[in-house]
């Protein structure tokens, strides 16, 4: 028979174990995401629910040969994943005049997650491929709009891979290799606004 003292000891050990599990698997990851996920752009004053940040979004310039970095107020997100989600959602909205969106209309964001290596996986609906008009430059614009809009606004994100309906894909329209995460590439960005990155 276990004595009452021994039973108390085992209970204390079990409670300490549960506490450690909570610290390891809940508290530390939350701290980690909050630390690394602070958006670069300054948050607008106000409560969290109405707070905004200024981010650079990318659209096809009037000359059709470059991407233009356009500043836009978007909702503040708590942590990297939420902020990245807000940025992509804003990027999927129609382009302001006189620009054109490089992302086919009707494309929706299914989900977004960030690995411990800072690789963001952006899961989009199939319209991003099925409604894509094609062309190498056009496809590069689409891909690097998504890549650059995350990497230039969120320093915690080092590379971006586009998924379609939750699956890895070869390309969007037959040209750009999407089988691995792509790093920031601002070669086609005409504006210098995005080049000065902290």
């Amino acid at each position, binding site marked *: 028979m276990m004595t009452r003292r021994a039973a108390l000891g085992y209970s204390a050990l079990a409670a300490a174990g549960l506490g450690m599990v909570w610290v390891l698997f809940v508290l530390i990851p939350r701290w980690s995401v909050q630390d690394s996920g602070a958006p670069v752009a300054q948050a607008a004053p106000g409560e969290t629910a109405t707070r905004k940040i200024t981010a650079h979004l990318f659209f*096809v310039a*009037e*000359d*059709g*040969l470059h991407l233009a970095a356009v500043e836009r107020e978007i909702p503040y997100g708590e942590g990297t994943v939420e902020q990245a989600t807000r940025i992509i959602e804003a990027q999927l909205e129609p382009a302001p005049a006189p620009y*054109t*969106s*490089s992302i086919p209309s009707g494309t929706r964001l299914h989900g977004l997650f960030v690995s411990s290596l800072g690789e963001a996986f952006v899961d989009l609906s199939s319209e991003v491929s099925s409604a894509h*008009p*094609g*062309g*190498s*430059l*056009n496809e*590069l614009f689409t891909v690097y709009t998504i890549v650059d809009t995350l*990497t230039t606004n969120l320093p915690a994100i*080092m*590379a971006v891979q586009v998924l379609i309906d939750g699956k890895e894909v*070869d*390309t969007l*329209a*037959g*040209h*750009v*290799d*999407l*089988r*691995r*995460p*792509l*790093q*920031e*590439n*601002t*070669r086609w960005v005409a504006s210098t606004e995005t080049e000065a990155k902290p």
Partner: protein
Amino acid sequence: MRDPRAFSCATILALLGLAVMLYGQGAAPGSPLIILTRDGRTPLPTTLVAGQEMVALDDLAGPFKIAIREDSVANAVRVTYKDKSILLTPDQTLASVGGRLVSLPAPLTRVGRRPSTSSGRPEPAEGRYLVPVEFINRAFALIYEEPIELRKASRLLIVGTLKVPRVEVHYEPLGNDLRVVFDMAPTFAHAIIQEQRRLLIRFDSDALDASIPLPPAQTVLAGVLVLDRSTIELDLGQRFASYRSSIPSSTPASSRIVVDLLSSVPETTTAPAPSPPPSAGESLATLAAPHPAIATIVIDPGHGGDDAGTRGPTGVQEKDVTLSVARHLKTAIEGRYGIRVLQTRDDDRRMGPDERAAYANNNKADLFISLHANASPQPDVKGAEVFYLGLDKYADQARRQAQLDGAVLPVFGGGTRQIDLVLWDLAQAKYVEQSTVLARLVESHLRSKVDVSPLGIQQGPMRVLVGVNMSAVLIEMGYLTNRGQEQALASGAYQESIVQAVTNAVAPFREYLEHGSDESVTEGAPPATATSGR
């Protein structure tokens, strides 16, 4: 010639050649001029008057839709085309074209009886006005909507922007071999194709203004004739064994094509005739280079099957344009260089990028050219672009790791051996430098033929290039989303310009591979960098 049948054939072909020559040079003034338009040929009769070749204004009225009216006040004849007119005065060797005086070699002349009418004014239908043939190109060309070129010696009147090169053929016997020289002006693209017992020299032309004398007596060439509007056929003789071709000189104004027909007679094959001196740029194509730097080229027509690629505003599909250009390009490269050329697809079917790369790798190709047509949300964007592979830091690290890792395999008899492994999807990495050179050469030759986008050469993670184990580029030939370029991309002329440019880039790239450098490549700015990772 010992074989009587061969002799008969040669005689017939020689007579045909003579007929063609006479047709081409026309010789006798008075035989009709040929009006050459995009719609075909129309004879235009001429007459000799006091040694001057004249043409009736009535005969010009039909083909050129002109109106002829006598101006009794000015005592002149007015030739009107649309809202413009020319005033011709009898007995004066001048024509007034919109107030500008143009000199003619002979005056306006009237032939036929001039009947009187009740009003006493002449009736032009009963008589005919003749003008010197030079009136057409000196005066009438100034008011006509399309360019007009008169080639009296060839009896040709070329109307419109037609490609009609003058091609003069002459022969140089070289022992048992025969050199056939084609002097072409101006320069148009050409290809040489061997089909069994004939050699076809195909020009990118609407018609040929050819001068072809009879070949000398020999055994490698039975005859020469103009086969159609763009082809000269060399009928090969019984002793023909092989040929080699070269382009010793080429400028936009003129170029010389040399075709050496080599005999199978032993003394010739053991001591072949000297080949023309090699020239920079577009040099030649011998059939039997011992260790060619480029033995096989794979052309990859982009898209196909249910993957139509991009579409133009009127429905032209990328997959059709790429296949058409690929077929022409294959013919042109084979014809000019004698290089083996393969296509990843020669029909309308879907192929994945790995399938395309595998086809090139398995055939041990030295060059991979992927053909595409571009698209933009902005309909004004136009111009060709050339892409080569750009790896960012992630892919580059993977490549380095793959090279470091290798594999250690046991060897028969004991011991081990280090084997280099190349990741299938990173095979292109070690060819990026060569592909950069190729991209520059292709871009520079494209620039001389078609509009090139301001972006010109670009580097990116192009999927179809990643896995090919050879120098490789992807050519976006133009923007199908641009209405003008859509029409151009669907046209034979634009496609031929692309074919010519890419074909021209092969020779200097081969020079680069064989000698390690090429002046046309090393000059200029460094390659554009596409990856700006952090």
